[in-house]
């Protein structure tokens, strides 16, 4: 079933329930215009909504973590995943990771670090700081697909925790935003209700995916 496709399920009680699979919104950070173009395409082809920015500083601005005035209307910003290059001028991917993990609004958002250099201490440092994964560049479609599955699994976990005592196995959409596979370079944000991630440890999700 493709992301965004509407699935109708008949419930024994006689009613109809429409569910949609969630579309992930990914923030991609990279100072290389070539890499931004490629990562954007990799994500869009994997049915994600993408926002690309060219630096860690711009990423913090976008997330409203730079202490600027924009913070108030960004409180409903929904970002499901942040993918960032490690080596960037100014704020490195590692610095960005730290700032995200220090924030209350986005600390639960998974952060994936990309790097062209396979340096073990660097990888360990990032994972220790809370990075979800460390991808070696050049990034391939298989990498993105794998990351997406991981994130969707975590998101489904969260949805299940939030759903109101529904014993049937339904994928409920906790994000009521309409899905539009658009991508834009640091443009304005759509207001969507945010849902705080809560890690529920004991859910078996194999039935959902």
């Amino acid at each position, binding site marked *: 079933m493709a992301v965004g496709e509407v699935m109708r399920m008949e419930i024994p009680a006689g009613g109809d329930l429409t569910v949609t699979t969630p579309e992930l919104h990914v923030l991609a950070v990279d*100072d*290389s*215009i*070539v*890499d931004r*173009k*490629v990562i954007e*395409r*990799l994500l869009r*082809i994997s049915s994600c909504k993408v926002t690309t920015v060219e630096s860690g500083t711009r990423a913090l601005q976008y997330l409203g973590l730079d202490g600027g005035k924009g913070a108030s209307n960004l409180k409903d910003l929904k970002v499901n995943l942040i993918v960032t290059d490690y*080596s960037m001028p100014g704020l490195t991917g590692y610095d960005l990771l730290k700032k995200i993990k220090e924030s209350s609004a986005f600390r639960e958002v998974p952060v994936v670090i990309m790097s*062209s250099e396979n340096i073990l201490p660097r990888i360990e440092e990032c994972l220790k700081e809370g990075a979800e994964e460390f991808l070696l*560049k*050049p*990034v*391939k*479609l298989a990498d993105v697909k794998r990351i997406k599955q991981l994130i969707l699994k975590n998101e489904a976990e969260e949805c299940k925790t939030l759903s109101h005592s529904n014993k049937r196995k339904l994928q409920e959409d906790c994000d009521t935003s309409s899905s539009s596979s658009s991508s834009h370079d640091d443009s304005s944000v759509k207001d969507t209700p945010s849902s705080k991630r809560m890690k529920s440890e004991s859910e078996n999700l194999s039935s959902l995916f």
Partner: protein
Amino acid sequence: MDALISQLQRQFRDYTISLYQQGFLDDQFTELKKLQDDGSPDFVAEVLTLFFEDCVKLISNMARSLDKTTGAVDFSQVGASVHQLKGSSSSVGAKRVKALCVSFKEYCEAKNYEGCVRCLQQVDIEYKALKTKLQDMFNLEKQIIQAGGRVPQVDIN
């Protein structure tokens, strides 16, 4: 028309394979092709265009950093540009350019001026050679489409 299409497709296939065999392109270029479809038919060309623009910019930065007339050479500055070029060449599958960047980086780290200048010249030649080759390849694609055919998937292995 069919005979023409077949001939063009054969030419395209042979040409593409030769680019891989001669080391101009690697696996990552194949990965980029996977991301192209009817909805985004020019994706590869668009990325490569950005890459070549990047080459011009970065090589110009390197030349400026290696200019002794403005004072002592800052090899770390040269190295930074080389690192960026290495990254983008890697992302598009520009195998020879990437390999040159690896040597170039070593010369920067060794603060070897002559080595750096040599690499700069080579990298300039190499990206231009790739650009010409790819333009020929894209032209073949265009000819196939204009003749009413489809661009074949080329199996490199």
